[in-house]
C-alpha cells in the first residue's frame, strides 16, 4: 500500500461556488427565521404549551445523534485498528464536528432566551442531564478537534490512537446523555425507559454512517477523485448491520411496553391509532429500515451503487422520523394524571395534543443542516481532510497480493 496523500479540494469550480452560496443563503434564511421567532415569541411557531419541543428539536437531536455516529468511521480506524478505515478518519471527525455544531445552533436559537447562552454556560445543575450534555457537547468538540490535529500533524500521529480512544468513549457517553434526555423523563409514558440510551447509540451508528457515506461519495464525485466501490460496499454492509441493530432495539422497546398493561394506551397510540403510527410504520420501519436492508443485502441489488446511495438516504429519512415520533409523538400522547377517569379541561387534559410545524421552524432546522454543510465544504477546501485517491490500489493493503493471485488464475 502506498503512502496516502491528503490534499485540500480546489474549491474553485462553479458547482462548488453554487453549493457554497446556496448553503450560506440557507443559513441566512434560517437565522432570519430564528430572529422572527425570538422577536415575536414562540407564538409564531407550531409549538404550544402541550407540544413544547417541536421540529427544531427533531432536527437538533437528529443531528447531535448523527454527529456522534459520524465519528465511528474514525474510531474503527484508530481504535479498532482497521487499516482500510484509516484514510476515512479525518473526514469522519470533521463531519461529526459539523453535525454537532449545526444541531447545537438549532437548539440554541430555539431557546426562549438564546441571549442567555452565557447563563447556560456558567450555571450548572449537575442533577440535570441537560447540564451534563452541555459539558459533553463542548468536550466532544474539543476532543475531536485535538483528534483531527493528531491525525494531520505528522509529529503527533503517535497520539492518534489514545486520543481516538478518548473520543470514542466520549461519544458513547455523549449519545447516552442524549438518549437519557428522554430516558429520564418519568412523567411521560412514551419515554421513561433505560433502553432509550442504547437505542440512541445504535441509531447514531446508523444515521451517522449513512450521512458519512453520502458525504464521502459526493466529495469524491464532485472533486473528481477516485473512490473504491469496494470501500462503499464495505461501508454499506456495516450500515446494514447498524440498521438491523436499531430495528432490534426498537422491537424490544415496543414489545416490553406492550407486555405491560399500563403502557398499552401509549403503544396503541404509537403503533396503531395516530398519524405517528403512520410515520412509524411507513417512514421509520418500511422506508427507513426494511427497504434499505433489502437494497443492501438482497443479491439482486447488493452491488448497485445507486441503490446503496438511495438506501443510505432512506436510512437518514427513517432516523429523522424515528426522532420525530419519539419527540413529538411522545408529547402528543396525553399525560395520565387520573388513570381511572375520563378527563377534560381548558388545558387539553386527556386530549391528544395537536402540532403543525410552522415554516420558521422548518427553516431554522434546515439552516442548521446548512451550517453543518458549510463547515464540511469549507473544511475540505481549507485543510487536508481528503486523500487524493481512495482507489483500491491506494488503500487496500492486500491489493497487490490479491491482484497477483488473480493474475495467476
Amino acid at each position, binding site marked *: 500500500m502506498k503512502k496516502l496523500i491528503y490534499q485540500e479540494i480546489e474549491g474553485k469550480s462553479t458547482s462548488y461556488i453554487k453549493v457554497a452560496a446556496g448553503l450560506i443563503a440557507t443559513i441566512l434564511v434560517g437565522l432570519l427565521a430564528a430572529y422572527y421567532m425570538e422577536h415575536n415569541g414562540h407564538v409564531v411557531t407550531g409549538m*404550544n404549551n402541550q407540544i413544547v419541543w417541536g421540529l427544531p428539536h427533531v432536527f437538533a437531536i437528529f443531528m447531535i445523534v448523527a454527529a456522534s455516529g459520524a465519528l465511528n468511521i474514525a474510531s474503527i480506524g484508530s481504535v479498532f485498528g482497521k487499516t482500510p478505515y484509516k484514510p476515512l478518519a479525518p473526514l469522519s471527525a470533521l463531519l461529526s464536528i459539523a453535525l454537532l455544531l449545526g444541531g447545537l445552533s438549532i437548539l440554541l436559537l430555539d431557546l426562549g432566551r438564546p441571549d442567555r447562552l452565557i447563563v447556560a454556560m456558567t450555571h450548572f*445543575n449537575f442533577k*440535570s442531564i441537560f447540564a451534563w450534555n452541555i459539558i459533553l457537547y463542548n468536550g466532544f468538540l474539543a476532543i475531536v478537534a485535538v483528534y483531527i490535529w493528531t491525525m494531520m500533524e505528522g509529529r503527533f500521529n503517535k497520539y492518534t490512537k489514545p486520543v481516538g480512544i478518548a473520543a470514542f468513549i466520549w461519544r458513547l457517553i455523549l449519545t447516552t446523555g442524549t438518549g437519557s434526555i428522554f430516558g429520564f423523563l418519568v412523567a411521560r409514558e412514551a419515554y421513561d425507559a433505560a433502553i432509550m440510551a442504547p437505542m440512541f447509540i445504535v441509531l447514531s451508528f446508523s444515521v451517522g454512517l449513512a450521512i458519512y457515506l453520502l458525504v464521502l461519495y459526493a466529495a469524491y464525485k464532485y472533486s473528481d477523485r477516485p473512490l473504491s466501490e469496494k470501500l462503499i460496499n464495505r461501508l454499506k454492509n456495516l450500515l446494514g448491520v447498524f440498521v438491523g441493530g436499531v430495528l432490534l432495539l426498537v422491537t424490544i422497546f415496543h414489545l416490553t411496553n406492550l407486555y405491560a398493561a399500563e403502557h398499552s394506551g401509549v403503544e396503541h397510540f404509537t403503533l396503531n391509532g395516530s398519524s405517528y403510527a403512520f410515520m412509524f410504520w411507513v417512514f421509520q420501519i418500511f422506508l427507513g429500515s426494511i427497504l434499505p436492508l433489502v437494497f443492501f443485502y438482497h443479491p439482486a441489488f447488493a452491488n448497485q451503487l445507486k441503490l446503496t446511495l438511495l438506501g443510505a438516504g432512506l436510512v437518514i429519512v427513517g432516523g429523522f422520523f424515528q426522532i420525530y415520533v419519539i419527540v413529538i409523538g411522545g408529547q402528543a400522547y396525553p399525560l395520565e394524571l387520573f388513570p381511572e377517569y375520563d378527563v377534560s379541561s381548558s388545558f387539553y387534559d386527556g386530549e391528544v395534543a395537536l402540532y403543525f410545524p410552522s415554516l420558521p421552524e422548518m427553516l431554522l432546522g434546515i439552516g442548521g443542516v446548512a451550517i453543518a454543510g458549510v463547515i464540511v465544504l469549507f473544511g475540505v477546501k481549507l485543510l487536508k481532510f481528503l486523500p487524493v485517491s481512495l482507489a483500491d490500489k491506494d488503500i487496500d493493503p492486500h491489493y497487490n497480493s490479491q491482484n497477483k493471485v488473480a493474475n495467476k488464475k
Partner: protein
Amino acid sequence: MTDHENSAKNLLKAPDNKSRRKFIGIASGVTGMTLLAPGIFLNQVAQAKTDAEAASSKVRWGMLIDTNKCKSGCNDCVSACADENGWKNQTRNNEELPNEVRVQWMRKVELKGKKTGREVSLPVMCQHCEKPPCVDVCPTGASFKRDDGIVLVDKHTCIGCRYCMMACPYKARSFVHSPVEFHDDYMPRGMGTVESCTFCVHLVDKNKSPACVSSCNEKAIMFGDLNDKNSDISKRVSQVASRQIRGDLRTDPGVRYQGL
C-alpha cells in the same frame, strides 16, 4: 515682589481657599447622597428577610383540596390566580392569544369515572413536589425549591429550554409564547421563560393565603404548614382520606386531594 507674583499670591489667599474647600465639601456631600441614598433606600425596600425570617425547612407549605366541595363549572380560583399573578389578559396585536399558547398556571379539570361514572371537579396547578422533576432536569438551576417547599422559577436564569415542562407529571408549567405587556412588580414575567403557580409566594411571605384559597366561596381549598402538627391542614389530613395525584411517582406533592 512683582505685580504678577502678588496677584498669584492673592489667588491663594485663605478666603478663596475656604470657599473652594466649602464648595468641594458640599459637592462631595451632594454627590455622595445622590449616589448612596437610593442604594440605601432601595436596600431597605428590597432587603432580604433576616435568617430568622427566611424560608425555613421547618415549614412545608401545602394544600388540601376538598373535591366534594369543589363545584363543577366554577372557575373562581382560576380567575383569582390569573388576576393576582397577571396572566388574565393575554393578547397579541390586540387579540386574545389562541388557547393552546395561553399561559395557564391553574386549571379546572372535570373527571368522570371510567367504570363508575362518578363525576369530580378539581383544580390542578403546580403540586409543589418534595422531589420535583422540574428542578432535577433544569440545566441552569432556574427551577428551584425553597426550603419551605415552594417550587419556583428564577426568571433571571431561565433560558427557556422547556425541559421542565417535559418533566412535569402534572402539566403544571406554561411557556410565555409572546411579549408580556404588563406585569406586577411582585410577579415578574417575561417572554421566553417558563412559569407556574408559586403558591402566591408574595402573599404567603406576608402571612396571607394564596389567591385561590381566599377566592373559593366553598372553602374547598385549605392552605397551611403540613409540618406543623397543630395547623388546621395537618389536623385535617390526619382525619380524612386524601391522596396525591400520581403518588406512584413518589414525587411527594405538597397538594393533596380529598374525595378523589
